[in-house]
C-alpha cells in the first residue's frame, strides 16, 4: 500500500508524515508522531479515549483518517498545558482526584476543554451530556463533573479579571487622551 504524504499542524507545530491511506489519525499520532496521550479504548468511536480536536472540532481520532488532516490543525492533550502552566482543567482534575487509573483522562480533558471553550458556565446536566461520549470505568464520573465545574469557575474568574484589566487599560488610555 503506497503511503499518502500529509502536511498539517499538531499542537501548533508544522508536521509532515507519510501514512497508508487506511491508517486512522490515532495511529498516526501515536505510532508516527510519538504522541501517545490519545489512547485507543475501542477503535470504534464508542469510548472517547482518543478524543482530539481537528480545527477546534471534537473528534474521535480513531474514526478520522490520517490522510484527512492535510492542511488542518490538530490539538491533543499534549498541547493543553502552556509550558509548565497546566490548563485549569488539568489542575482541577488532579485537585479533585478526578482520575484513578488515568487512561480516559486525556480524552476527558480534550472533550471538557471543547465544552468550556464554547460554554464557560455549563450546568451539571450540560457537563454530563457533553462528556457522555467519554467512558470512565473507575470514578463513576462524580469527581470528573466536579472538576470540570470548578475549572469553569476558574476560567470565568480569569476571563473577568482579564476583562477588568482591559477595561482599566482602555479607561486609562481614554483619560490620557
Amino acid at each position, binding site marked *: *500500500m503506497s503511503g499518502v504524504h500529509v502536511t498539517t499542524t499538531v499542537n501548533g507545530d508544522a508536521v509532515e508524515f507519510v501514512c*497508508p491511506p*487506511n491508517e486512522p489519525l490515532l*495511529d498516526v499520532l*501515536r*505510532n508516527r508522531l510519538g*504522541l*501517545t*496521550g*490519545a*489512547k*485507543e*479504548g*475501542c*477503535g*470504534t468511536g*464508542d*469510548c472517547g*479515549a482518543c478524543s482530539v480536536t481537528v480545527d477546534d472540532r471534537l473528534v474521535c481520532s480513531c474514526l478520522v483518517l490520517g490522510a484527512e488532516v492535510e492542511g488542518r490543525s490538530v490539538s*491533543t*492533550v*499534549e498541547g493543553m*498545558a502552556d509550558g509548565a502552566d*497546566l490548563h485549569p482543567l*488539568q489542575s482541577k*482534575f*488532579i*485537585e*479533585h*482526584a478526578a*482520575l*484513578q*487509573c*488515568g*487512561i*480516559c*483522562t*486525556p480524552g476527558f*480533558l480534550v472533550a471538557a476543554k471543547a465544552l468550556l471553550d464554547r460554554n464557560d458556565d455549563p450546568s*451539571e*446536566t450540560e*457537563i*454530563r*451530556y457533553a*462528556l*457522555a461520549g*467519554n*467512558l*470512565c*470505568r*473507575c*470514578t*463513576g*464520573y*462524580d*469527581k*470528573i*463533573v*466536579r472538576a470540570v*465545574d470548578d475549572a469553569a469557575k476558574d476560567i470565568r474568574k480569569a476571563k473577568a479579571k482579564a476583562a477588568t484589566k482591559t477595561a482599566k487599560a482602555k479607561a486609562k488610555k481614554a483619560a490620557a487622551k
Partner: protein
Amino acid sequence: MSDNNQNTNFTNQEFKVVGSRPERPDGIDKVTGRALYGADTYAPGQLVGAILRSPHAHAKIKSIDTSKAEKLKGVKAVLTSKDLPDLVGGAGPNYDILVNCMARDRALYDGHAVAAVAAIDENTARKALKLIKVDYKILPHVTDVDEARKPNAPIVQPGTRTANVEPAPTKDSNIAARNQFGHGDVDEGFKQADVIIEKTYKTEQTHQGYIEPHACLASVGPDGSGELWVTTQGHYTFRTVCSTLLGLDIAKLKVTSSEIGGGFGGKTHVWMEPVALGLSRKANRPVKVVMSREEVFRASGPTASTSMDIKIGATRDGRITAATADLRYQGGPFPGMWGLLGAMTSFACYNLPNVKTVAWDILVNRPKVAAYRAPSAPMAAFGVESTMDLVADAIGMSPVDFRMLNAAREGTRASYGPTYGPIGILPTLEAVKNHPHMTAPLGPNQGRGMACGFWFNFGGQTATDLNISTDGTVNLTIGTVDVGGSRASMSLIAAEELGISYDEIKCNIGDTNSLGHNDTTEGSRGTFSSGMATIFAARQAIDVMRERAAQKWEIPVEEVEWKDGEAHAVGVHHSNLIPLSLKEIAKASPRTGGPIAGHNETVADNAGVSFASHICDVEVDPETGSTRVIRYTVVQDAGKAIHPQYVEGQFQGAAAQGIGWALNEEYIYGEDGRLQNAGFLDYRIPVCSDLPFIDTKILEIPNPDHPYGVRGVGETSIVPPLAAIGSAVSNAVGVRMDHVPMSPPRIRAALKAQAASEKAVSAG
C-alpha cells in the same frame, strides 16, 4: 452542587499526614499524556503481533495450515499451540492458562485463540491471519449455566468429574466442583420460623470493562532471557506464569508493569502475554500485541453468570432462624473458585444460628472467567439481599431494622467459618438508618432500596524497599501496582513514619528485577499490604538513623528516639545534644556507614473484612421499563482512610460498576454460541449522563491487625448495588426483579406479567 461527604472517626490513633488529601504524585504525568500505559512503548525492530480466534463456540481443530501466511512478505513468525509445548504436566491451573492462551485440540469458546502471527506492520499481520486455514469440526456447545447442568448437556471438558462429592461421580459432567459452608441445623431452624421465603434468581455475565485493552511488548533473546512490558495487576505473577509456560528461568524474565488503565480483577490473569513472548522468541525480535476491544470482550475473562435458590426463615419478631443458598456459577470452560467465593460471601453480613450454602462450579463454552471486583459476591448478595427485603416485608419490619437485628457483630461466627473481630456492618447500617437520604421525599414512579455487602480483603506476599538519598529525599519502591492513586497513599504512609513531608517521598513501582516477589494487586490489598511493608521498611530505616545518631553522640542506641523527623537523645543528661534531622543524618551518611535504607519482606496476614451498606433511589418509566438511578449513597468501613479522596473514589467507582451491572450490562449469546455484543456500543457501561453524584460516607473501624487500622476499600461497594437497585425498583413500581440486569425489556415484561396477574385476580 451538593457535597455532603462526611467522615466519621472511630479511631483514637492520631496521625500527622495520614488522612489528608494531597495531590497525587503522578497527577501531572496523567493529565499531560506523559504517563506510559501498556500500548505506549516501542522497541527498536518491533513487530506487530495479531491473534486468530475461533468463530465457533465449540469445535475440534482438525488441522491448521499456516504455510500461506508464513510465505507472505513481512511475516516474521507464525505460532500455534505446537510452539507452546506442554511443560506443566497436562493438568492444573497453569495448564488451563496454556490451553486458554492458545487452543490445542479444541476451540472452547467463540474468541478462543487458535494461531498468531508477528509481522512488520498491522496491515501485513491482518493479511497473514486471513491466510491461515483452520479446519474445524463443529461440536455441540452450551453457554447457559442452567442448561450446562442438565444430564444431556454437551460436555465442555471430557473427563470432568464433580470434585468434593461422595460417592465420586462415575460419569463426566459440566459440574466441576461442589463446595459447602455453614453451621447449625437448617432443617431445625426452618421449623422455628414463622415466615419462610424461598426464591430463585439469575444474574448475567458482565465484564470488568477497563478502558485500556490488554497490551504488551515482549522481547525474548536466543539466550533465553527476556523482557515484558505489560499492563497488569501482577507483574510478578505474570513473570512466574509466563516463565513456567515458556520454559524460561524466572529470574531471567524481567516484567515491568506499565501504568495500568483499569483492571478490576481482569488484569490479574495472563491472557496473550505467553503468545507475545512465544512470537518474539520465534522471530527473535520484539513483538507488541494489543487486543482490540472486541478481543477484550470475547477473549479476556468476564465474571460468572449465575443462577441460585435462596431461602430465609425468620420469626415474627424478626430473628432469622435459618438460611440456605444453592448457587450455580459458571467459570467458562475451566474450573475456578467462583462458586466457592459465592458460597463463602453470601450470608457473611449476618449472625445466623443455622446456615448452609452450597455452590456448584459449572463449565460452559464462554471465555475463561476471571476475577471482577469482589469476585462472586455481588451475585449472591443480589439473591440474599432481595430475599432479606421480602422477609422483612412479610413480617412487617423495615429492611434496615431487620438487617440491624440480624447483623453480625464482634464474636459472631461467620457463615464461612471464622469468628469476627471488630467489624463494621452494624455501624454502616446505623449510618444508613440516620442518613437524610433515607427520609427524603420520593416522586411518582420513584422508589428507594437499600442493601448490604461484604468482602474479605486480602494481604499476601509483599516486598518493599525504602532508600534515603543524601539530600534527605526518599525513594520508596513498592511491588503492587498503582491502579487508582496508591502512590499517594504510600507516600503519605512513608511521610507519616519518617516524619518528613509528603513531597520529599518519591514512590516507584518496582519491576520484577528490583524487588522480591509481590503477589498480584488484588483483593483490595495494595494499600493494606504495601502500606504495612512501607511502615516496617521505614521503621527499619529509622533504626539505622538512630544508630548513626548514637554513633555520633557516642551514646547507646537505646537512648535515641525518633520523633517528628529527627533523632532525639532521651534523658536529662543528654539535654546538651541537639536533635539530628533526617536531612543531617542523610547528608553525613557517606562518612558514617554508607547508604541508609530499610526494606521489608512479609506475608501481610489478617486483612480486615469490610462491609458496606448502600441507599439507592430509582425512577422507573412504566411505559418503557427504563430505569434511572436518581440518588445514591455509599456507606463503607475503610478501617482507616489513608487518602480519603481516593477512598471515596473507590466507593463511587464500585457503586457505578454495580449500577451498570444491575441495569444494563450483560453478555448476550446467540443460538450459535457466539457473543453478540462484543463492543462498548452494545455492551453499554454507564456514561456520565446516566449517573447522579454518588455520595459517600467513610466509616473507620480500625483493623486491629494493621498498624494504622487499614482494611481494604476497593471491592466491597460493588456488592450491594444489584440488590439495592432491585429493591428500589420493587418499591417504585411493585415488581420484584429476580433477573439481573434489570434492563428495560425485563422490567417491561415483569410489569406486563404483574398487570396480567392482577387482571386475572380481579376477573376471578
